[in-house]
Structures are given as structure tokens and as C-alpha cells.
């Protein structure tokens, strides 16, 4: 049963072995002595594959089109062993296409666009995390930026006290500690009505900002700045920024996938049930408090991880990260895109982050309103009111959520 799988694996390994010297090694001539040395050169192979991204994209599109109309036959002996990975494969047809395009953007975008891409990825992760509480479970969290800042400060401090700490070592700890913080904050108020949570998180964000603004440990009002080179080990052949972009993108894909699986799982259904009717959900045997706490903790953990990614990108953090405005921006992204809609909040993040960024640079805006960025929050507030009144399901919201929010009078 495993013979074919074994053969595939052996074949791949053999191919990797015989191409190894051509891809990953390079020759170094010493003309003085007439000698030659063979050295590892990872950049060489990366460059080779990066130049092939367009080809990969075409292959991915063809594969996706091929499999899109066909249900996977999991009874095939090879595929049976890979059954647990089924959800990874049974994605919409454009998923591999999108992943390749987004990841390979690291190779052809310029420096500035890569920065925008990093921040966009971080905002998308934040919006996805906040969507768990607001969209799925129906809990209003107003101080989400505090968890974001918590993760960022945690990673920055860990960097200072453990020099050379790598992000892949720190990330599970940051996720767990952020979740623990969310659990502690949510514990007192999740037993109560939903709007207490809004106020408590608001107060928590304010106090957290005060705390990190006062302690010498966190650099007071000035904040912490680290050197980027020590944190991100660049993939050979790529710059630090390109590597950061790839890290952020991979995190975005992983979190997106995890959240989709959670949403479709019994846990996700319990969350939706709580959102639609808490009392009914409770009487159906759902442990409401536990499920709410779980949602809040996961959301907080994702926020903390986004904070870590922010440190990787900007290597600078100050107390303004935990400010109310930051929370409002993330909330507006979720509300605009559609509460509870995974792709909706990503669209909302893209619109609300990129449009002001592009408008800031455009000459037209520079001429007519030089301080356009001041008007950003005003417009965000207007979006929140207008969306609630006119289209409560958001731009890409589901019809079910529309009926739930805009109940007939």
C-alpha cells in the first residue's frame, strides 16, 4: 500500500540529491594559487526558483483548474495515508494560485511596496483575530490593540534579555501568553452581558498603555527599538525585508487556514450559536462561558502574534501602538468587511489600510487636503455608523448574519 508513496518520496529525494550541486553549491576560484573551492550558496538556488515563480503560478493554476471540478477520491491508497491533510487540499481552486502570487510578490515588489505588504498582512491578521470575537461570537472587544502591543513588547523585551532569540522560538510562547492574558481579562466579564466586555477591554487597553508608558523596563514613552538584523535571519539571496514579507505572508496563510477550520468545526458552530442566541445556546448544552473564553483567548493570542510580526517588520514599538485609535482602525476593518465573514474582513483590512496609504501619496490629495490623514478616523467612524444602519452584514457578509443583525422590528 505504501510502495507507491515510498517510490514517490525516494524519487523526489533522488532528484533533490542529483540536482543539489547545481542548485546549492558554487565554485570559488583562487586565481593566485590556481585552486578551486566549493562553497554552499543558498542564494543561488533561491534565485533559480524565484525566477521560476511565474512558471510555478501557471502550473498551480492548471492544477487548480484540473482539480476544481473534481471531488477528491480519498480512497486511493496514496491519498488515504494523507487523509488528515484533506482540508489542506480541498480548498477553493484559486488558493494555490493566490498563495504563489502573494508569496512570489516578495521577489518583484520594490522596497516600499514590500513594507506596505508587510503592514497589510499584519492588519489582515489583526482583523481576522478580532473577527473571532466580534464576528463569530458576538462579543464586542474595543481594546484589541492592547493585545497587539502586548505581543510586540513581549517579543522586544525577550530580544533584549535573550540576545539572538529567533521568532520561531518565541512565537508559540507569545501566542500562549497572549491567550493567557486574554483569558485573564475575559474571565470576570464574560459571565456578564456582552457590553461589559467592551468597556473592560477599553479600560484594559488604556491601563496597558499607561503601564508601558510608565515602566522603565518598556522604555517609557519613547518605546523600544531593536536592530532588525539580529531578529530576522534573511533567507540567502533575499533581503531582510523580503524575508519578513514572506514570514508575515506565511503566518497570514496559516492563521487564515486555522480560522477557517475552526469556523467550520463544532467550536465554530458553538460560537455562532452563542452569537445568535446565548440563552438558547446555553440550553442546548453549550458551555457558553467556556466557549466565549476560548474565542477571546484565541483572538488575543492572534493579536499578540501580530504584534510579534510587527516588531519583526518595524523593529520599533512605542505605547501609541496600544492607543484607542489603533483598536478603532481594526474594528472599522472588521465592520466594513463584514462581521463574521473571513474574506470580508480581509477585504476590509485591504481597503482601509491601502486606500489611505495611496491617497496620502497622490498629488491630487496633496494639493487639495494636505492633512488628509487627520480625516481618516472621522471617515472610519462614519463607515461604522453607515454600515450598521445600511448594510449591517458588511461588504462581503453572509445573508444569515444580515438577518441576525437587522432583525425585523
Amino acid at each position, binding site marked *: 500500500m505504501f510502495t507507491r508513496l515510498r517510490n514517490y518520496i525516494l524519487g523526489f529525494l533522488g532528484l533533490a540529491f542529483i540536482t543539489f550541486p547545481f542548485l546549492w553549491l558554487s565554485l570559488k576560484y583562487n586565481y593566485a594559487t590556481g585552486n578551486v573551492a566549493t562553497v554552499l550558496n543558498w542564494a543561488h538556488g533561491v534565485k533559480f526558483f524565484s525566477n521560476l515563480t511565474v512558471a510555478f503560478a501557471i502550473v498551480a493554476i492548471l492544477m487548480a483548474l484540473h482539480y476544481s471540478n473534481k471531488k477528491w477520491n480519498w480512497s486511493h491508497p496514496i491519498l488515504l495515508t494523507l487523509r488528515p491533510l484533506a482540508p489542506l487540499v480541498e480548498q477553493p481552486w484559486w488558493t494555490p494560485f493566490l498563495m504563489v502570487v502573494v508569496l512570489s510578490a516578495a521577489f518583484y515588489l520594490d522596497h516600499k511596496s514590500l513594507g506596505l505588504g508587510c503592514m497589510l498582512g499584519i492588519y489582515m491578521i489583526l482583523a481576522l483575530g478580532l473577527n473571532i470575537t466580534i464576528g463569530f461570537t458576538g462579543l464586542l472587544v474595543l481594546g484589541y490593540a492592547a493585545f497587539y502591543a502586548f505581543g510586540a513588547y513581549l517579543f522586544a523585551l525577550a530580544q533584549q534579555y535573550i540576545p539572538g532569540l529567533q521568532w520561531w522560538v518565541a512565537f508559540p510562547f507569545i501566542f500562549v501568553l497572549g491567550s493567557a492574558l486574554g483569558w485573564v481579562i475575559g474571565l470576570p466579564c464574560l459571565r456578564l452581558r456582552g457590553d461589559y466586555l467592551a468597556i473592560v477591554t*477599553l479600560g484594559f487597553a488604556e491601563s496597558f498603555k499607561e503601564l508601558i508608558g510608565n515602566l522603565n523596563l518598556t522604555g517609557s514613552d519613547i518605546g523600544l527599538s531593536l536592530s532588525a538584523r539580529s531578529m530576522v535571519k534573511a533567507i540567502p539571496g533575499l533581503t531582510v525585508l523580503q524575508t519578513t514579507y514572506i514570514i508575515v505572508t506565511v503566518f497570514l496563510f496559516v492563521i487564515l487556514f486555522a480560522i477557517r477550520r475552526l469556523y467550520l468545526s463544532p467550536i465554530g458552530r458553538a460560537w455562532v450559536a452563542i452569537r445568535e442566541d446565548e*440563552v438558547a445556546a446555553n440550553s442546548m448544552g453549550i458551555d457558553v462561558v467556556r466557549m466565549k473564553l476560548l474565542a477571546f483567548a484565541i483572538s488575543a493570542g492572534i493579536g499578540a502574534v501580530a504584534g510579534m510580526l510587527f516588531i519583526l517588520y518595524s523593529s520599533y514599538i512605542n505605547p501609541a501602538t496600544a492607543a484607542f485609535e489603533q483598536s478603532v482602525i481594526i474594528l472599522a476593518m472588521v465592520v466594513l468587511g463584514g462581521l463574521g465573514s473571513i474574506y470580508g474582513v480581509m477585504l476590509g483590512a485591504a481597503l482601509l489600510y491601502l486606500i489611505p496609504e495611496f491617497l496620502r501619496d497622490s498629488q491630487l490629495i496633496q494639493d487639495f487636503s494636505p492633512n488628509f490623514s487627520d480625516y481618516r478616523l*472621522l471617515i472610519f467612524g462614519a463607515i461604522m455608523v453607515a454600515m450598521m444602519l445600511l448594510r449591517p452584514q458588511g461588504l462581503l457578509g453572509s445573508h444569515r448574519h444580515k438577518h441576525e443583525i437587522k432583525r425585523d422590528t
Partner: protein
Amino acid sequence: MSPPPKAKDGGTERNEWNPWRNLKHIFFNPKKKLRSFRNQPLEKDIKPTVSLPPPDIILGGLVRGSIYGLVALGYTMVYGILGMINFAHGEIFMIGMFTCVFALGLLSTLLSTTTLVNLLLATLVAMIFSAAFGYANERIAYRRLRKAHILAPLTSAIGLSIILQNFVFLTVSKDNISFPRVYSDQLNKVAFTLGGVHFNYLQFTILGTSLVLMAALFFFIHRTRLGIAMRGTAQDQLMASLVGIPVNKIIALTFVLGSSLAAVAGVMVSMYQSVAGWNSGYIWGLKAFTAAVLGGIGNIPGAVLGGLIIGLTEDITCYYFGSNWRNSVVFLILMIVLIIRPRGLLGERVADKV
């Protein structure tokens, strides 16, 4: 992480990696002078570290607390009648601050006097404007979404409060505006001195005005027909409408009443602190909401009691630990109240309506 290499004399060398050397700088940086009075040697010699707060701190706390109580009334009334938090209330308080300063400017040029009558008139103008904003808030953010899921009105009210903040930020001033000193100096005179501590008229004016307004509101709600209608609406909107109470108007009246009280509070705060800023409504509103929760949300005497407790705690904390931690303490109180007694000090246990 390898253990730090030992130096020859037994200790660790200065430039080597040693977390414990850094740890003592977490809370104390010897290079930086702390703002807290406790680290100043002269004060330390005179005063023992633990002492009762002086009477001016107590009075300051009461003044602050009465203002919190006044703002908290708006929160608690709206919560009592609609079961929703009025998020834009803090911003309406801020609108009161600004309209009062505008009205004072107009009045002093029109009447060319600077008497306290102007101040009264300006307060009236501020109340009218704030009431109008409160009514608009109800019409825009709450009325159409009253039957919707709880998230919808909350979100729209937050949006409205952001709009109001940034509207003032963009149209009036990015920095704090100052209250005209001509008016506040008339009240800021020393009334009497007790044990070397000055008490001025302004503090007593604020305390008196707040208590009178609270008593008036209590009387209004419990003794007048409109108040009875309000309480009826709070109990059951459908039944209230069946017995002929105009429910929509009563709810609007609740918003208007709360907003005008907030405007008075705003005027007094801007007079007391002599500045008004576009973002001051946010933090005052947050603390006033904490006061309402502490006293028991939906309960009017509770809001007053909660406000006084929060104000006293905040000022006493400032006295002992410095003003850096004033917001955190209030939040800590909120958390403790929610853990120990979520219905508040005077609140009743309310079952969820299905």
C-alpha cells in the same frame, strides 16, 4: 542561553550578559529622577510614607467624584431604559465643554460684561447644545437599531463617538483650548483656610451644583408624571405604549436629560481644570461608566455613590503613587467590582430577558 561566565573576583563582569543586573532597573532607574514625591529626600524626611491624605485631597476627590456621578447618571439612565451602554456620552460631555467656551466668548463680546450671569447663560447654551447632540445620537445610532442584535447599536454608537471626537479635533483645535480665566477666577477664590489648607469657592460650587442636580433628577424621576412614564418605559416598552406612553419620546427625553447633565459636568470640569480638549470626553466617560457599574448600573443613587468612590480613590492614589497611575487604578476597580459583585453596590440582580 549559557550561564554567564564568572569574572575572576567572583562577581560577573560589567559588560557581560547578566539578566539579574538588569532586573533591578525594571522599576527603578537611578539615572532618571522619578516624578513621585516619595523619592525626593526633603519630603521624605518631613512626611512618613504612610499618612492620612490631607483634607484638600479628600475635597478634591469629592469634587472629582461628584462630576463623575453627574456623568454616570447619563449612562445609568440610558442603560436603565434601553439596556444598552451609551458610548457617545463622553463625547457629549466634551461637546458641552466646547459650546460653553464658545458661548462665553460670544456673551462677553455681546454684553461686554464678565459677570457670573454670563457663565450661567453659557452653561444653559451648553446644556441645550449637548441635549441636541444627545437627541441626534439617539435618532442616528439607537432608534433604528433598537430591536437589532446588541452589537449593532454598540458599534454605531462607537462610530458616532469617533466622529464627534474627530469632528471637534478637525474643526476646533488639535490642542487643548483654555477656559477663559476671567470667569473661573471669580470662583477660584479662597473661601477659608483650615490647617494651612486652602478651600476655594469653585470646589464648593461644583459639589453643590452636582448634588442639587442629582437630587432634582431623583425628584423628577420619582415624583413627576414624566418620571413615572420613564420608569414604566424602562420596565416594559410594549406595555408602556399600550397605556398611552409615547415610548419613543420618553427614550429621547432620557437621552436629552442625561446629555444636559453631562454638559453641566463638562462646563464644571473645564472650569476646574481650566482646559478642554477634544479627547477629554473619552477618559472622563470611561471613568464615569466605571462609577455607574460600581454603584450598580441602572440605579441613580448608585451612580452618585460610585462616582464619589471613584473620585476619592483616584485622588488618593494620585497622592500616594503619583498621577501616572490614575487611569489604571480606576480600571482595576472596575475589574474587581465585576469579579466580586457584578451588579454593583446598590444594584439589583436582574435576570436575562428571553
